[in-house]
């Protein structure tokens, strides 16, 4: 395997494992704010013990999130040195802002959240919880800014260093391999870089995905307790909070998905064509609900709804969605391959396509899981409304609760699949239409070094993941702890217990 593929596999592996945890931290952080807020508002001690139980789960995910996150900060430099040099002026500032604004906030107030139960007052503690949740969201902002800039670069220009002086290059300048030691992208307009065309859509999408991850974890554990008839009062209240949170997040996620897809249609037409397996440009472009991409015959097999993709992308059925056979445009190709005949250009076109069969599957897995979760939440809310949700004597309720126990996997699968679709759909570019992934690797790193580190990380992360599941299971088995979660007397005086 080439260094490029190995570097990508290693990065994908480490970031995929990392991304199991921060969404839980973001989602659970929001839930902790709600629970502690409810406790301060109602004085009901159950909300206090609820906050304490979920804080322990939160602490576990946070620690692994931090540990696996440090790797990411280093890997841009270790695996993608050429990329780091090329975009450091832009990408680095978003990363540094994440550190200064978000990580310090999160980790600092985390100390109070975890260990401050009898060191500070209840309102100060609530404030710390809010700050941790805010910090988690704020870190999502900066990292999504950095990634969105790679998808839809804006607010920059290219410059070339000639004899120690920098020369601004024209906007349509095509970067060549020979340029990579002297050309770089630099900030022109900071805010245009931060709020590039895809930042807000993708940030909303990522945060809602994180909320769903946290909400469904709460739903799952609470449903498990109800099925097992344990900690019933606690579990019922937790399930209500979790289900309500999941419902809001899942519905909003559908709206956000629509915005995000329209953005991809506008900004990254090749990615959209790959996600939907569209090869031919036709009016009333159909959407394939599920199936597979037949790469050889350049078609997509599966049930189709005519015109749906055109409606989703453009809001009107007649307007065609561009197919891969027309992408990228002649103009784009001839700019990169001057003096090449039209036939040869057509043959070169494919080298600018992402891996459509894989991107199609990841994208469709995300959508199908998202819709399934919405259906599950709708069923849950319906049962809640009819008063059946906690009536475990009912076979239907037991089925629903069992489905809810497994629902925790849904957001994780959808979040991972979504990121794979987003990142693989951007290929062969690391910065869309600007810099190729194959040109971004660290020149001094050999395949053997990457293999060695990959093996090392595979072992460490396998152990970590096993430990995480094991300790999570133990914490669930143990459940909320009424005795140990007893409030200090000073807190009782401030927040008089009310049922």
């Amino acid at each position, binding site marked *: 395997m080439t260094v490029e593929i190995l570097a990508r596999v290693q990065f994908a592996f480490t970031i995929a494992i990392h991304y199991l945890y921060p969404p839980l931290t973001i989602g659970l952080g929001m839930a902790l704010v709600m629970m502690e807020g409810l406790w301060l508002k109602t004085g009901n001690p159950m909300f206090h013990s609820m906050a304490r139980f979920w804080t*322990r789960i939160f*602490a576990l995910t946070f620690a*692994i999130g*931090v*540990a696996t*996150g*440090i*790797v990411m*900060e*280093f890997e*841009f*430099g*270790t*695996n993608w*040195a*050429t990329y*780091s*040099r090329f975009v*450091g*002026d832009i*990408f*680095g*500032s978003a*990363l*540094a*802002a*994440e*550190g*200064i*604004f978000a*990580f*310090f906030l999160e*980790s*600092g*107030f*985390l*100390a*109070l959240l*975890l*260990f*401050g139960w009898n*060191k500070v007052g209840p309102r100060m503690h609530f404030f710390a919880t809010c700050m941790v949740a805010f910090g988690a969201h704020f870190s999502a902002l900066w990292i999504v800014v950095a990634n969105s800039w790679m998808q839809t670069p804006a607010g920059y220009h290219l*410059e070339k260093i000639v004899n120690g002086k920098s020369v601004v290059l024209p906007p349509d300048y095509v970067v060549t391999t020979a340029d990579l030691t002297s050309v770089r992208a*630099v*900030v*022109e307009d*900071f805010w245009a870089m931060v709020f590039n065309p895809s930042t807000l859509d993708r940030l909303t999408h990522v945060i809602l995905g994180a909320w769903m991850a946290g909400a469904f974890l709460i739903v799952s554990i609470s449903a498990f307790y109800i099925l097992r008839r344990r900690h019933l009062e606690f579990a019922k209240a937790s399930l209500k909070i979790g289900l309500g949170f999941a419902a809001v997040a899942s519905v909003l996620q559908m709206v956000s998905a629509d915005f995000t897809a329209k953005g991809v249609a506008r900004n990254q037409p090749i990615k959209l064509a790959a996600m939907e397996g569209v090869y031919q440009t036709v009016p009333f472009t159909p959407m394939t609900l599920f199936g597979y991409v037949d790469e050889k015959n350049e078609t997509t097999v599966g049930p189709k709804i005519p015109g749906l993709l055109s409606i989703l992308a453009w809001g009107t059925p007649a307007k065609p969605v561009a197919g891969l056979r027309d992408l990228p445009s002649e103009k784009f190709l001839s700019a990169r391959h001057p003096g090449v005949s039209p036939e040869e250009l057509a043959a070169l076109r494919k080298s600018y396509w992402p891996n459509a069969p894989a991107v199609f599957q990841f994208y469709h897995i995300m959508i199908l899981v998202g819709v399934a979760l919405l259906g599950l939440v709708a069923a849950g809310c319906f049962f809640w409304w009819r008063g059946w949700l906690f009536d475990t004597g009912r076979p239907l309720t037991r089925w629903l609760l069992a489905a809810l126990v497994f629902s925790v996997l849904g957001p994780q699968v959808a979040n991972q699949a979504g990121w794979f679709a987003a990142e693989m759909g951007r290929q062969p570019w690391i910065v869309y239409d600007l810099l190729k992934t194959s040109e971004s690797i*660290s*020149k*001094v*790193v050999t395949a053997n*070094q990457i293999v060695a*580190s990959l093996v*090392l*990380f595979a072992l*460490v992360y396998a152990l*970590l993941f096993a430990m995480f599941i094991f*300790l999570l299971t*133990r914490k669930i088995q143990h459940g909320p702890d009424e005795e*140990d979660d007893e409030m200090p007397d000073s807190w009782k005086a401030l927040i008089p217990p009310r049922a």
Partner: protein
Amino acid sequence: MNSLNIIWYVLVGVLFTGYAMLDGFDLGVGVLHLFAKKDEHRRLFLNSIGPVWDGNEVWLVTGGGALFAAFPEAYATVFSGFYLAFMLLLCSLIFRAVAIEFRSKEEWTWWRQFWDVAFSLGSLVSALLIGVAMGNIVRGIPLDANHEFAGTFLGLLNPYSLLMGITTVLLFAMHGAIYLAMKTEGEVLEIVSRWIPRLIALFLASYLLFNIYTLVDVPWVLETVRARPYVVLVVGANVLCVLNIPREIHKGRPFGGFLSSCAAMALMMATFGLTYFPNMVLANPDPANSLTITNAASTQKTLGIMLVIAIIGVPIVLAYTASIYWVFRGKTTLTKHSY
């Protein structure tokens, strides 16, 4: 030379100094962890750093981010050049971090022993590798004309850098022991108090040896000090701070010792910064290929934007970091939900 480049040279240095002072003591506690024999003592060790270790590690993350943003060439060259060393460092940091979280969750002896070793070994290797990396930066690494690393992994493990690694381990261990003296009482305090003089002696010996080795093995240091005599003042202050540590400890003032140890670290970094300036990564044997604060830097615009970010962010960070250390001041005690 642009003032923004100089400011960022200082700020990156400040971030890494903050990291050394803060994560330095929790890495040091990790290095000493296995020397505590009783389970209760080990738990006290872990809980003394429990609320603060991950905040301390953020200094490294932010230092890395600031280096990436302000001097992307230096970030790319060092991180890709030190590939395997950094991968090992990352694995060690991961291991020690999760070991803190996992260790006391179960009571089985084998479980606790496993995570004790993971925590201690992870801390030791992290401190060692940080020192080795630093040693190579001081000594200079082979760079080609495109500022790409031209050396090997084994070349990084040269005796000079290994000595710097050992010195760093001893420095952190001493720093950690002094921190523990502030945070513990009774039997643990007695044990830790017995360690401190030995650790100070070991560090001083290693530090002295390292300085002699520097003068012999790294010729540019002496040349630069001749051209910049004020560096000697900083070195003098540094020596006074280091010598003040045993004095404070002897007088039963661990907090004073801790401050002295922090000041010593800051002055060591200052000595390095003043002599190394304006280099970011020195090329050895071909100094013409060195990365400096000019040729490794981002644009003035980005350095300016980053300065605004730092001016807004850093005071806030310092304010609540200080508040949190204040909230968790005093001796560590154990509860059921402690580590």
